[in-house]
């Protein structure tokens, strides 16, 4: 099985965000691998191991952290990785999808995996946009796969814990929500090895153009705690107040 995994760097969710006009203030923003792409990579690695196939990881070079992300993917077991462009301005999901589609080209991939969503996808989900523009069958919100006879069995999650199984004839695109196993860890030494392995290819590309027909005209940070009573003081004060609230609600 020849597998492609599409990875995105997204603003670190634990960082305090600041705005600059109609965008985030990106000057000091840290980026991390989109958590769902980490699961896509894991599911891809498991399938690669089971099928004796190969895996290539792709990422857009729009953040400093991308190289580290791709080296980590190699250290975990990706055969090759491609960093698409360098120091690109962030672009919308349509432009990301189009860039991935041209990088995948007619590479003959049986399976294209990416995270179910990313936190900045205002104009659609990259995995499903890639499926649509390649005209490939797709399943999203995937929580596990099993290699079958001539097809891949894919478990899709609905809601309230309900899941459904589908048989998918490859080639296909999957939006991965959760890999069947928690993403593996890899020793820093292995990442350093990957840095020296030459498995990371830097592909020169022009700055992609936004093409979604959707424009962000303004951004706001919703007032945190608006309408909430914020409890002052230390943990003792907090616990005391919470006990009062529990008592007032009649559950204590």
């Amino acid at each position, binding site marked *: 099985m020849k597998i492609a995994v599409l990875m995105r760097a997204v*603003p670190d*969710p*634990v960082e*305090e*965000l600041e705005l600059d006009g*109609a965008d*985030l203030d990106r000057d000091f923003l840290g980026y991390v691998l989109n958590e769902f792409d980490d699961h896509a990579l894991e599911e891809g690695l498991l399938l690669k191991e089971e099928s004796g196939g190969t895996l290539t990881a792709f990422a857009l070079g729009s953040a400093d952290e991308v190289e580290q992300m791709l080296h980590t993917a190699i250290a975990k077991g990706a055969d090759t990785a491609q960093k698409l462009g360098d120091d690109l301005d962030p672009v919308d*999901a349509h432009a990301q999808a189009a860039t991935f589609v041209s990088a995948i080209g007619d590479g003959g991939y049986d399976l294209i995996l990416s995270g179910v*969503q990313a*936190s900045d*996808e*205002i*104009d*659609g*989900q990259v995995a*499903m*946009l890639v*499926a649509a523009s390649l005209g490939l*069958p*797709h*399943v*999203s*919100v995937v929580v596990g796969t099993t290699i079958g006879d001539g097809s891949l069995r894919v478990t899709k999650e*609905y*809601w*309230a*814990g*309900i899941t*459904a*199984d*589908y048989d998918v*004839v490859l080639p296909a695109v999957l*939006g991965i*929500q*959760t890999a069947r196993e*928690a993403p593996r860890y890899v020793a820093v030494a292995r990442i350093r090895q990957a840095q020296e392995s030459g498995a990371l290819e830097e592909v020169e590309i022009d700055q992609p153009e936004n093409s*979604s*027909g*959707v*424009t962000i*005209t303004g*951004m*706001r*940070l*919703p*007032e945190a*705690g*608006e309408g*909430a*009573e*914020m*409890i002052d003081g230390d*943990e003792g004060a907090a*616990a005391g107040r*919470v*006990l009062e*609230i529990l008592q007032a*609600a009649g*559950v*204590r």
Partner: protein
Amino acid sequence: MSNDILVFVEHLNGEVTDATYELLATARTLAAQTGGSVEAAVIGAGATGLAASLGGADRVLVADTDALGAFNPQGHAAVFSGLVASREPALVLVPYTSVGMEIGNQVAVANSLPLVSYCLSVDASTGLSATCQLYSGKVEADVVVDGERAVFAMLAGAASADDGRSGGAAVAEDVDVTIPDLAVSFVGIAEPEGGDVDITAGEVLVAIGRGIESEDNIEEAQELADALGAPLAASRPIIDQGWLPKTRQVGKSGLTVKPKVYLALGISGAPEHLEGMRDSATIIAVNSDPQAPIFGVAHYGWVGDLFDFIPELTERLDG
């Protein structure tokens, strides 16, 4: 092009979902702005029988076919894309759910329409615009669409499902369905296993998120829950790590809970989590990040370390 609003009807096991009724409510408001009507497209085996429960629409387009016995990502998307092509609605609404996520992207690309995702609200009174949630709910964005038509993927809670449920009888119209050769085939549905505590029955819930950091720390949270006589619930990452069973997950792909008190510890408040607990009578949040979106739905909040807070409250409850 028409002035109509076309709604994708999501249904499972013979029932139209609340997410669909929310779309119908939103569509009604939008139709008043465009001067068009509300159409609902219901696709799949048994679709005919569902038309009667879609009185919130003016017209129900029924694509009843045994070839699509259950939701098929490829098949449903192809049929719905075809309907959008032939009806040319001004606005297309899909739910931002497990099902809608597959449909929205396909239909937008197939019809060369812009797609706006994570929508909290849509306005069609002058041009098309929307308010959307980004960065896991930390940012609200104002969005403008080029052109007069677009697909909108609506977040849960954007409108009241009850508003979309009301209404008289819609006119049902059978539509022709042509289904392409499908590379995706439905195998079967699995319902969650029972046998664990039922978190939807708890009067008080203690819910933990990624802030709990490690499996070893779950015990401390469990002790607090025990002191309260409350089940221990969690956000998705805790379940995905295998630290608690799936039956404890609150949110979009987990359970919806409405306890008297929901105590959220180390949960950021991503929209997918809020979807499952925002209607709790009292929400108390403890989080070290003052910007955490959970404080946006909480009634009471404390900014601080949950590892400081938990033993303090447990002690007061035991004491």
